């Protein structure tokens, strides 16, 4: 009987999710208990609600989810349109519905709907994945992601848009896209990164991209053409960069040298590094973090929640949190690998990519190696929409485990 439970329920995800949500609640409590706000109790209420939903969803058979996915998708797009019209503008972005004192962010739910729709689209052939190397399938797949991204960029919410884009590559990779094509898609990103650091890095990046393209041993003319396109992208980066909003430029600049603007965009990065660094090995203790308790870090219960962990629980706390996320990602990828149901297999890859991307960007930002892009730390940051959306993803991830042997 016991064995049966472990066979039917993804206990690992359940435990790790509880640990992460619990850690998040502790951190939110510590970050807000002096401020007289009720963030903690709200998050607690919705965490319980969300965990119930998660467990509920884990019992839903995949085909029901698959069937519902298109409806979700259409409803999500509709909500994304509506939020542009009726939404409430918070810190420059029109991404919220205000409902009875709570803010609902449709883009958080659109993530799930888009992944599910993409998974559904790419898995309809019974014995496996659709061939994404066919241009039409590829373009359709891209289009599924394209619509919500365009709407979200209109809000504008660059962070969330990037999240949508971040899940495409792993999914394409998973369903069998040719590594050559994948690399062609990635190569401009490498070039742009190189260009950002200066001419030497740009040339080095072009050389590396060129060499890797050569390694694929494809038509030399095509390879040369691709290299040339990349060169053009690299050199036009400068003009693209200047088309970014000034605050976005500053945020990117501040990553590399926060001291250039210690009270502007670099402020958060410096303060969060100071908070985390001053935590040391074991941290200053629960409720003892001066940086966070004294509100040197803005919005520390949302995007900068990792600072709380770093300052109050130290290196040990930080590493434990990282390991918990890695466990979730590994388990999702493993569920994906084990799942005979290709729809859930793809969905789990999408979810793990999203968690991975959130983790890298959010933690990277707080420890000063990524630009400040406002996306939450999954299941820990305060935010009802984000919390519920991740818990729903985890529910589907658990169902992938439960129904791993069903086609």
């Amino acid at each position: 009987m016991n064995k049966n439970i472990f066979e039917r329920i993804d206990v690992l995800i359940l435990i790790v999710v509880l640990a992460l949500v619990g850690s998040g609640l502790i951190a939110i409590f510590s970050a807000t208990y002096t401020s007289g706000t009720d963030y903690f109790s709200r998050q607690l209420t919705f965490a319980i609600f969300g965990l119930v939903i998660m467990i509920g969803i884990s019992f839903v058979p995949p085909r029901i989810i698959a069937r519902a996915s298109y409806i979700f998708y259409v409803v999500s797009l509709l909500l994304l349109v509506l939020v542009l019209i009726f939404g409430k503008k918070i810190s420059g972005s029109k991404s919220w519905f205000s409902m009875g004192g709570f803010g609902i962010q449709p883009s958080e739910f659109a993530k799930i709907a888009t992944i599910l729709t993409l998974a559904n689209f790419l898995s309809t052939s019974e014995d496996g994945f659709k061939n994404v190397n066919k241009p039409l399938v590829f373009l359709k797949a891209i289009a599924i992601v394209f619509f919500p991204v365009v709407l979200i960029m209109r809000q504008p919410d660059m962070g969330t848009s990037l999240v949508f884009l971040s899940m495409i590559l792993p999914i394409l990779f998973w369903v069998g896209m040719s590594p050559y094509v994948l690399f062609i898609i990635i190569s401009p990103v490498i070039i742009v990164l190189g260009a950002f650091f200066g001419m030497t890095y740009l040339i080095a990046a072009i050389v590396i991209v060129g060499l890797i393209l050569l390694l694929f041993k494809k038509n030399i003319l095509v390879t040369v053409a691709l290299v040339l396109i990349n060169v053009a992208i690299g050199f036009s980066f400068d003009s693209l960069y200047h088309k970014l909003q000034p605050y976005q430029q500053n945020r990117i600049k501040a990553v590399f040298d926060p001291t250039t603007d210690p009270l502007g965009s670099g402020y958060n990065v410096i303060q969060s590094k100071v908070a985390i660094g001053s935590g040391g090995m074991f941290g200053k203790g629960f409720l003892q973090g001066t940086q966070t308790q004294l509100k040197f870090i803005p919005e520390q219960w949302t995007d900068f929640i990792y600072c709380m962990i770093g300052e109050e629980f130290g290196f040990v706390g930080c590493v434990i949190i990282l390991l918990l996320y890695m466990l979730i990602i590994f388990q999702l990828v493993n569920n994906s690998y084990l799942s005979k149901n290709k729809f859930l297999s793809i969905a789990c890859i999408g979810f793990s990519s999203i968690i991975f991307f959130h983790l890298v960007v959010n933690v990277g930002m707080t420890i000063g190696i990524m630009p400040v892009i406002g996306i939450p730390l999954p299941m820990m940051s305060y935010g009802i929409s984000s919390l519920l959306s991740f818990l729903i993803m985890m529910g589907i991830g658990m169902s992938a485990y439960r129904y791993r042997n069903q086609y």
Partner: protein
Amino acid sequence: MDLEKKKYVIYSLCAVVLILFITRLSYLQLFNKEELSRESDKNSVKTITVTPPRGIMYDRNGKILVDNKPSYTVTITPSQFDKNNLNEVSSLLEIPAEELQENLKSFKGTNRFNPAKIKRDVDFRVISHIAENRDRLAGVDYQTDAIRLYSKEFHGSHSFGYTSEISEKMLGKQIGDYYKQGDVVGSSGIESNYENYLRGVKGYNFITVDVKGREIGQLNDGKDNIPPINGSDLILGMDKDLQEYAEKLMKDKRGAIIAVDPKTGEILCFVSKPDFDLSLFAGKTDPKVFSSLLNDPDKPLFNRVIQTKYPPGSTWKMMMSLAAMAAGEITPTSTIACNGSFVFGNRSFEDHGAYGNINVTRAIEVSANTFYYKLGLQLGIDNYNKYGKMFGFGGRTGIDIPNETQGLLPSREYFNKRYGENKWTPGLLVSLGIGQGELGVSPVQMVAYTAAIAMDGLYCQPHFVTKIKNSMNDTYEDMKFEQRRINIPQKYFDAVNKGMYLVVNGGGTAKNIKSEDFVLCGKTGTAQNSSGNNHSWFVGYAPYDDPRIAICVLGENQGWGNVFSAPIAGALMVRYLGGEQYETSDEIKMVNQGTQD
């Protein structure tokens, strides 16, 4: 590529990111912790300096001489100060806006985050305005400080000295960084000399503040606060009642009084007149008041006890007697003919009278000039200088307040330098023999010399402070001052002391101050002054057989020694020895006997 391989590709990618993050975290949290912690503290911890009250000064009987009282000091934390409030704060504190702005600009770095003292001793009206508008006047605050409280009965201005806000020059010169702008330091007198004891040690309270600078509470519940150490109290040898009486006797005069306990050198009273009210300096000092004191023609800031250099006149005659006897020029019984005047070269030196052949005791009693004209020549410049030095002339007594003069004790080198080698004659020694000419002494030198004679050669360094009370454990530390023996035989001191006894109790120049109850001894003197009335000196001690007080009184431009200085000295000695009932009146009747010094 099958799914299993892809799974491991993804796992590897995650592992790389994990390693990268852990590396970065260990860099921040394990290797850069110290630096980032400091950064974090600087951010959120405000340091409030707690200045302890200065030590109190007590007299020899435990009566308070200099006390403290609370006052308010306005502080501004430059980093929080809103420039829009500049004009309001400027008019509130009565500081010109430009000056205030400059002042605030001068705080750099982390100092900007800590409150800086801007104005001391402000009215309660100002404090209540700040308290009522606390939210609006960001960064403006006040703290309670102790400032000096002085007795209204007497001044003691030149002894205690004043405290004032530390000057920029002093801030720049200090070793270390204990003092900060706005701190109060002892600037003269005992306050200055014993600054390191009186000031105590500042404490620091660590207050956590949020990002807007609002105070949240004490850091670590105040466990990390460093409490201040109160200033150490000083126990002075001064007698408060005697000091008060001495100041009354000198009221509206110009001159100096210093009395010591001849056995120890403890200063019993110390008066330099005119003086000033120290409380003018206790809080905010009006620059006008200061400059009016500075420019007063009577020089109230000048410390006449330790800074004047007048010739001692006839009070020098004990010096000459002892030197001549010790050098073997005369004995206590040998006599010198004193016939009314003395001719040296082509110049005649006058005397008050003709006394015939007299010995040294009689010469002191009647203050015979001729005796000492001759003795000066006989003694010669080298012995003159040698014995002068022995009694502390031409050098500092080491009194424990700053800016003491060395005076002037001539020597062969001095004259050679001044007049050229061999271009001066021994004739200079004739005047020097009676304490006139190029000889400069201060009252403190004179009192130490008189006390040494009274003690038959025990020379004590005059000093104010006898004990220091350690504020940490309430124990008393005795102060050590120099005492030395002057190597001159007892019989010579006997001859001189007998002379001083006769000055008052015989037919001498100060018989006007003879007391029925105490045996007073002394010597009058009149310092010739080419630019005004002569200066009136009196040195003395009492009682004759067991000296408990030695005194020197100088009356600037007050004429004869017995007219002005002797009565004051007499009254004070009697008052000290006999107590309050001997305090006759605030004004001593000046005798007028005309021609005696």
